[in-house]
């Protein structure tokens, strides 16, 4: 009798659970947002969303279709309300690949606009982020595919490739969230452009105080900036004109094998910091304008030539960042960490364009490829 009562009480306890499955979201029901873009249109936000629909065509075969819709509103959530109406199932951003900003939108304070992404547990923070130059961001989604990839995936992979080619540092929404709130450090975002029916990364956009400054480091010099940031990717290829002459086939190309960056802060008379940047590169020559043996003497000449060239280029890049007021190297952060008193005394946003940044690059050629 006792056992029976116990069993009944256990059942009574378990039974209410049977009403359950409150949070169920079956994989079939979900509409997965692959790409999102935000533009400004008539002082309102225009969100565009791309959802990838797969259409099974018998066992093992399928086709896909991008379902694109856009809506305007005063905030992101405002536009979502409208966007949700276009889709058959519950929308989830847990698989979003890419978030694009139109140039005008990017110039707003991004951190406040994107709060939604970080406040909810659902969105995927590994999505890549990029600024679209020259056209409306949503327009990019109208391309069906890049290569064989659906558009959102294609964009993701283009940016990933740019990261490994050291055009932009590795970035995603999660890293963005960190830098949005970091004092004394700005960041760069990839800038992509639609060229006909193709899309290409055209450089690294400088973000100042969480909004796009409108200035961009071109594709050719961004690798050098990344070396100075100590955030370079798998491959860093640079090139220098021989004898400073810009003519056809006169460039020596080299790949960075090893890079070491040093940042020293000193103070000048007025209390502003003076930054000494020193970059030590070990490179491998992978292109030389003449197929001939590079002698030891020539090697030394090349080393000084390249060092001088890179030093000059780096000065220009630093100038650009100062013009954009984008402390991408985190000099302010370094100051805050090493000298908190001095940091408190100055207004970094005003000080950064004024400070003196000395750069120096030392290059040592380590290898010359498989040819001597």
């Amino acid at each position, binding site marked *: 009798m006792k056992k029976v009562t116990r069993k009944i009480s256990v059942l009574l*306890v*378990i039974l*209410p*659970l049977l009403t*359950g499955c*409150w*949070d169920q979201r079956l994989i079939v029901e979900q509409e997965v947002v692959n790409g999102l873009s935000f533009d400004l249109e008539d002082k309102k936000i225009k969100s565009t969303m791309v959802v990838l629909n797969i259409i099974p065509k018998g066992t093992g075969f399928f086709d896909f279709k991008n379902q694109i819709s856009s809506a305007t509103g005063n905030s992101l959530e405002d536009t979502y309300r409208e966007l949700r109406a276009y889709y058959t199932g519950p929308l989830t951003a*847990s698989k979003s690949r890419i978030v694009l900003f139109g140039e005008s939108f990017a110039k707003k304070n991004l951190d406040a606009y994107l709060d939604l992404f970080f406040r909810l*547990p659902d969105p*995927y*923070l*590994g999505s890549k982020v990029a600024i679209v130059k020259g056209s409306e961001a949503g327009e990019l989604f109208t391309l069906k595919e890049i290569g064989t990839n659906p558009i959102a995936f294609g964009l993701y992979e283009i940016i990933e490739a740019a990261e490994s080619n050291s055009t932009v540092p*590795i970035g*995603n929404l*999660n*890293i963005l*969230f*960190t*830098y*949005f*709130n*970091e*004092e004394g*450090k700005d960041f760069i975002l990839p800038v992509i452009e639609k060229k006909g029916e193709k899309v290409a990364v055209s450089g690294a956009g400088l973000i100042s105080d969480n909004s796009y400054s409108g200035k961009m480091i071109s594709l050719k010099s961004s690798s050098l900036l990344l070396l100075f940031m100590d*955030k370079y990717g798998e491959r860093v290829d640079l090139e220098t004109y021989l004898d400073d002459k810009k003519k056809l086939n006169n460039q020596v190309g080299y790949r960075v094998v090893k890079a070491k960056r040093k940042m020293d802060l000193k103070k000048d008379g007025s209390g502003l910091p003076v930054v000494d940047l020193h970059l030590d590169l070990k490179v491998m020559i992978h292109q030389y304008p003449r197929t001939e043996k590079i002698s030891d003497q020539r090697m030394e000449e090349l080393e000084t030539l390249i060092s001088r060239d890179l030093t000059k280029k780096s000065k220009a890049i630093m100038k650009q960042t100062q013009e954009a007021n984008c402390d991408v190297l*985190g000099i302010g*952060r*370094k100051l805050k*960490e*090493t000298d*908190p008193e001095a940091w408190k005394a100055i207004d970094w946003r005003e000080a950064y364009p004024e400070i003196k940044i000395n750069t120096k690059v030392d290059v040592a050629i380590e290898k010359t490829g498989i040819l001597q």
Partner: protein
Amino acid sequence: MLSNKNLFFLIIQAQVGIGILGLPYILYNDVQQDGWMSLLVAGVLAQGILIILVALSRTSPKETFYELNHRLLGTFLGKIVNILYILYFISFSLLLMILVSDVINTWILHRTPKWAIILLLLIATTYIAKEQILTISRTFLFFSILFIGLIILLFMVYPQDNHFGRMLPMGSKDFTEIVKASPDAFVSLIGFEIILFIMPFIKNPKKSLLVLTFANLFTVLLYVFLFITCVITFSGAQFSLIQEPLLYLFRGLSFHFVERIDIIFLSFWIVPISTTLVVQLYNASLGVQNLFAIQRNKCVYLLAGILLGLCLLPVSYSIKESLSSFMIYLNIIFVFIFPALLLIIAKVRGIKA
């Protein structure tokens, strides 16, 4: 009888639980990047209390704390103190369950009602807590595999984009501020008070202090490691926003074959959280057993029923904040001040078992 290994895992499982999720956030908002110093201070404090607790339970190693109370304070006063302790454990468990259901609601199961989660939690913990202490500790030993998982995952965070400079400037806060923040850290170290109740079951009581010290050291070092990982990963203002930094750390983490580690982690971290609840239930059930002289497993059922009832009250969730700030003081009173007083009484009276 509990061997040293059993005791060690029992203590760390009792200490580490829900607190680990929010601990870095609380500390960072108190003393910024110097929070690890507060942790160490709290660790030293805990160690001091440990010595007191062990000294107290050694005065009569064959008795649990409740029996000791009876003997030292007399039947009436002893009974009142025991009831207070039971209430303390109940309110601790209540707070724990409210926090757990809250975290799960926020992160994973958004629409699942709290009572369902709590019911599930109570069924599982009751099933463990009704067993003998040796079985409990051996179970905890198996659950401790999760700590290895946690440590590996924390190491996985390091290849991500982080900056060691965020630890700097070191020691920018006053020592008094650091000490003031340590009670917040101390809450997460609570759990070792179980030693008061399991002394009679320990195989090697002489070494218990050493084992407890190692367990405490492990927990403190784990917290320090976690805190440092969080500091170097999150930037300042970001850190002060994120309520569960441990989960957010893993939210950004993704591998080729699996994403959203935070969901997987939190789902299985329920186990160490439950073990804390098991320990509280065990402590309380011993008290109820002492009070009413009924079988201990029935005490556990009774307590689980009471806890379920309390959680079903709608008011429970609105008092979450006040209960958790209140609990900081209760912890110090019940884990530190009262046992210390009792130790003095025992020494003055010179009672030996």
